[in-house]
Every structure is written in structure tokens, then in C-alpha cells.
């Protein structure tokens, strides 16, 4: 057997390489067909193989994080009295104010319209140049708003979302990316005014819990199941994917989904204690020096 890379003649080399490649593919095909035959008669073998051959993914091999919450009485006590207790304990309905940074462009208004559609009980207010954030926060508190969302933009596209929980709740700033408005989604459905159900995936760590609760506090407590609408916030590798679907049960085993509404991705940049204050204390702040490993995630 000659090493292919020692052959100087290109035609010959190519020929040999193709032969080798085909031989490899054939042996793989043969192995798989015999395996399939064996497993069709013996399903246990298949299960055994699947159980053994679990591939390593970044999520499986995630670096150990001691802040992952697991049935902790202290954390539960902390959460029972945190800034969201008005929503969780007292059942306060959320009232959201959506605004933008100063001098926004058209795409920001479009995105804002979508946001107003997603969260029930929302008001959009055009940003006037004479008011700073602290004034806006004060006015909202006076009018009993529970949350403020500020859409930031750069180069005519929305690129940031700041979520401020009132009256003195945390402020979270996210990087917004991959926005697809509903009109750009093929086969998208029409939304109705029913309150959606909420799915929050994978908010494991203590920081993740805080952010997860912040998102929960944006939606009304009791969904209207008749609307069959569901909003999902899925956290994977510190990116939070937002999707909205309408589901329909075809039969006992099968559910069909139709996508509604916008898709966007959020990534937490910083979390500040208290309402937005440029000189306020940051409970968590992303810094590139924190990215020590590909398997380390914070949410």
C-alpha cells in the first residue's frame, strides 16, 4: 500500500484517493446495514448502543458551575422576598412601557410594534429628546408601570434591549440579534389577543434564575389556553432564543406547530441592582476576560 500523498502524478493520485474514499464509504454502509438488520430483530441491542454512544456536546461537557440552583432552601427564601415578589406572591399584573433610544429609525418602530403584540398590557411611548432615563423611570413609577423596555439601536437596526423592572427591581441589558419579523417568516400565523403560555428553558444558575424570573414577570399569570399560543424563551449557551408558536393537537401523539410572531436572540450583557443608573452597582457584568473556556456558561 503506497501512501497517497507520496504519489507525484496528480491523475493517478486522484484516482487512488477516490478508490480509497469509495472503499471507506462502502464499508461504512455495509456495517450500518448489518447493524440495522440485527437491531430490527433485536431492539434491545439498539437501546444498548444508543445508551453507550452518547456524543459529547458543549452542553454535556459544561464546566462545573457551583451556582447552579438545585432545591436550595436558602435560595428559595431569597426568591420569596426578592424584587419580583410583587408579581409572584401578590399577583400583580404586569404593565409594560416600551420605548426606544433617542432618534430611532423605522426598523426600530417595526420591532416595537411586534413587542407590543407579544406582551399583553403594553404601551408604546415615543421617546422625546428632553427626557432622560431617570425621568422616564420616575414617570412610569408614578403611572404604576411594572416594567420598562428600551430598544437600543445602532446603524438603523435594533441591537440592544434594556429591561428595567420597577419600582426598584433589577435592570438587565441584552444584546439583540437575529431579528426576524413575523412578516418575514414563511407560513407564519396570525396572533390573537389571548394571553400566551410561557416556556422557560434552561435557566439553571442563580443568575439564570433571576433573569428567568424577570421574563416571567413580563407575562400575565394565567394564560388563556383557548388561544393555544405559547411563547418560548430558550436559553442555550448563554443565548436566549425567543419564539412564539400556535399549537394544535392532531391526535394523542402528534402536535403541529405554526410559528407566529418575531424571532429574536438575546444575550445578557449586564445586570444592575436597582433601576437604571449609569453609576449604579452591577450585580453581574460580562467582560471578555470571563470567557476562559468554551464550556463555561453563566446563565
Amino acid at each position, binding site marked *: 500500500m503506497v501512501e497517497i500523498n507520496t504519489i507525484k502524478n496528480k491523475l493517478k493520485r486522484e484516482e487512488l484517493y477516490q478508490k480509497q474514499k469509495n472503499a471507506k464509504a462502502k464499508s461504512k454502509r455495509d456495517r450500518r446495514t448489518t447493524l440495522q438488520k440485527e437491531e430490527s430483530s433485536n431492539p434491545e441491542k439498539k437501546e444498548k448502543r444508543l445508551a453507550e454512544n452518547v456524543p459529547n456536546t458543549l452542553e454535556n461537557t459544561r464546566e462545573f458551575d*457551583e*451556582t447552579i440552583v438545585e432545591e*436550595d432552601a*436558602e*435560595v428559595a*427564601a*431569597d426568591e420569596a*422576598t426578592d424584587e419580583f415578589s410583587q408579581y409572584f406572591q401578590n399577583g400583580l399584573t404586569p404593565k409594560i412601557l416600551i420605548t426606544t433610544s433617542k432618534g430611532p429609525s423605522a426598523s426600530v418602530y417595526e420591532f416595537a410594534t411586534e413587542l407590543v403584540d407579544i406582551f399583553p398590557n403594553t404601551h408604546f411611548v415615543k421617546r422625546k429628546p428632553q427626557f432622560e432615563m431617570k425621568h422616564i423611570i420616575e414617570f412610569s413609577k408614578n403611572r404604576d408601570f411594572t416594567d420598562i423596555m428600551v430598544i437600543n439601536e445602532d446603524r438603523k437596526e435594533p441591537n440592544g434591549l434594556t429591561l428595567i423592572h420597577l419600582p426598584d427591581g433589577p435592570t438587565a441589558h441584552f444584546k439583540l440579534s437575529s431579528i426576524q419579523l413575523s412578516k418575514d417568516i414563511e407560513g407564519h400565523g396570525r396572533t390573537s389577543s389571548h394571553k400566551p403560555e410561557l416556556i422557560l428553558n434552561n435557566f439553571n444558575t*442563580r*443568575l439564570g434564575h433571576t433573569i428567568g424570573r424577570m421574563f416571567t414577570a413580563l407575562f400575565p399569570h394565567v394564560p388563556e389556553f383557548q388561544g393555544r399560543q405559547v411563547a418560548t424563551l430558550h436559553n442555550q449557551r448563554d443565548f436566549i432564543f425567543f419564539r412564539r408558536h400556535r399549537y394544535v393537537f392532531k391526535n394523542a401523539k402528534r402536535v403541529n406547530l405554526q410559528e407566529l410572531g418575531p424571532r429574536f436572540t438575546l444575550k445578557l450583557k449586564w445586570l444592575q*441592582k436597582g433601576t437604571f443608573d449609569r*453609576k*449604579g*452597582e*452591577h*450585580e*453581574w*457584568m460580562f*467582560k471578555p*476576560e*470571563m470567557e476562559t473556556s468554551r464550556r463555561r456558561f*453563566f446563565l
Partner: protein
Amino acid sequence: MSSQRFYTGDEQGLVKVVTITEPVVVKPKRVRRNQPAPEAPPKPVPTVETWGIPDREKAVQMMCWDFEKKHLAVARKNGLVQLLDPKDGTVTTEFKHTLGKEGKVDNIFVGLFASSESIITCTNTGRLVVQSIADHSKATVLEVGKDICRMRVHPREHHIVATGGKEQELTLWDLKALCKDTEEETPEPSTKKGKKNSKKAPAPAPAKEMEKKAGGPEARYKSKDILANGQIFKAKNVKNDYLDLRVPVWNTDVQFLNQYDTSRIAVGTRNHQIRVYDIKSGARRPAVDAEVGEMPVVAMANGKDGSEIVFSDTVTNVYSIDTLTGAIIGQYKGFTGVATALATFIPFEDDSTAHLVTVAMDRCLRVHEMTKTRKLLHKVYLKQRMTAVVVGEYAPAEPTEDEEDGVVSNKKKRTEGEGDDENDDDLWESMGKLEDKKNKKRKLAKE
């Protein structure tokens, strides 16, 4: 295995005792070529003991050792000031101060100090209370201005207090003078002097007090800026900036740099400046004025013998700065949240490396070593947003051979670095106390 204890306070009112043990340093044996290397002993896990039940109203705002390091003083959000037994956290003494509200903002404690006779506390409204420990009813209430951000008591001279705040320059008060004035005072409305709201004492007392105070600085003060009674030193604002505008004043933290006298004081401001004032020179303007970082200073701690200051700002940076020049020595990395409290300590009494322990809003306690590398040695997740840390006992390891003579066991460490004379004094002082402890006996090196 040597172990170090830390006491932390958090916003749920829990006091946690964290014990970090250093593993025994095992000399690696020479391994033959084909044989497997021996396994390293497992790294010891820090233990955490929690005292208290979660209750936000009892959030710990300030925490410190009392002067003899027998009790832990804790100041809480609902106005409770407690002295805890460091062994098991039981409350030995408790006082209730009133912490009202100003509009919608709660008043907070900004200073706490405990000596054997009294506890001195200060709130952000400038209400300084000297509470006698023995006699619960005896409490002297003094006014040190409004919008105070930090009050610190000098570790040696317990009657000297430094305050600083929003539009409140660094001021040094003499409590003995202030107390005396309030005792002799007839009930009159307080008069405003400049920005201060100090009580003006009747005629005979000030003449006596003026004689007691240091003569030099006062003589140079302009007539409209006379020191109010009880004040020893009041700083002056720096010169106008390059646009000839007044530089705003907002001091967020104060630290005494010198353990013996009040000669040098460092101040951190909201406009990311670190200033060092030299009282002895008589100058009212800072000797060193450095702009570091871009965000307000949150907390400060003394480094080795007053030449170094470690401070944290609101964007998770922790800098170490030289107090003589104002230059940054380095930055401590690894923080994901604001470091709310810092403390420096030296595990051994002689010149071993200083360590920095910090507690942050990202719910972790970190120990860095204060060498050139500024390496993170330990990180302990503590589940709560922490607000205060106090350095506890250090128990050195059992020596394998008798290498460590002259080291005293179970000596409670000071939070700031010390000079050698101090060590000897304390060594002699504590010798008597060691007999009470039922810990390992050690030979004391008698000089």
C-alpha cells in the same frame, strides 16, 4: 492544614463563617520512569456555617471586629446593632437605633466601630451615636453633617472620627470635644455654618476646646471657614478644573492610612478620584489626587503599611493604587459583580505575603494574594449578595518538622497590615490570653 476563617454579612441578614483550609504542601517524591505518579491529596473544600434566618429587614449593612477582637459588631437595616460571639453567632448585646426614611429612600448605616466600652455608629443623615455597651440607656447623639457616605474611627485613637459624603469634604472630628459640647449645651436651635449643621456650644466651652486642638491648621483657615466645634480638620476642595469650574465633591469612602496617628487619610470619590490628605503638613488640599478608572469608588481597603490602597468600583474592577504617587499598581481580576467589601490581611504575623479578601454582589467570596501576580487563590460561592466581610482567625498547620518557631497559634489577625513593633506589643499582650484557649500549645519565641 492551615485554615483561615472569614465572617461575611449579606443582604438577607445572614452571617456566614467561611473556613478556607490550605492543603498540606506535599513534597513530590521522585517517581521512577514507568511507574504511575502518586495521586495528589484531594483539595480541601471550604466550609460555610450560616448564622441567622433569611430576613431582608435584617440585612447586614456594616460589620467589624470590636477593638479587642472578642466580638463581631453588626449593623443591620432595621436599626439593630448587635455584638455577636464569634464562636457560635449568639447575640451578646443588642441595641436598637432608629433609622428613618428620607422621602422614599431608607437611611443606612455608614459607619460602625466598637471598642470595649462603646459602639459608635453613624447613619447617612449624619447622626453619630456613641452608645455605651455597659449602660444601655447612655447614648450620646451627635450631628456630623448630612449626606454622609462614610464614617471611620481611627483604630488607635478612638475619639478621632473621619467623615465624608456628598458635598461633604473630608472632616476629622474629635469626639471628646463634640461630646463635651453637647453635654454643656443649652437647648438652642442649631445655626448653619457654611454647609455644616453642627451644634454651636455656648461661650465658655469653645475657648477651652480651641486650646486642646492642634494649633497649626486652624490659624490658616479663612475666617468664614472656621472649624465648627469638634472638628479637628476640614479639607478644602481642589482647585477649579481646566474650564475654571468648581470640581464637585462626593466622597464615597474614607480610610486611615496610618495606624498610629491621623497623618494620612485616603478618600475615594464618586468621580473616580482617589485623594490622599496629609494632615500633619497642614495643607487642606489633598497631597495626592489621582483619577483612576471611569466609575465611582465603592469600597476601599488599606494595603501594606499605608503605602497601598485597594479599591473597587461599580463595574467589577478592583484596583490597587500607590498612595505616594497615585499610580495604579495593578488590577485584581476574576470579578463578575461589584466588590462591595474588601479587607486585607496577612496570614502569618511576620512578613508573609498579604492577602486580599473580597466579597461581591455576584455572591462569591474571593481571596487574592497581594503579590506581583495578584493571583486568585480561592473563590467560594455563598448564594447571597454579600455586603460585608471581616477577617477571622488563622490557624497555622501543624509543622512536620519544627520549622515554625516564633509563630503564635490562633492569633486573630488585624484587617490592615502592621509594623513589627506592633507585633511584639501584641505578642506580649496576648500571651496571657493564650492560656484560656484549649488549642495546640506552642512554644513562644522569647526575644
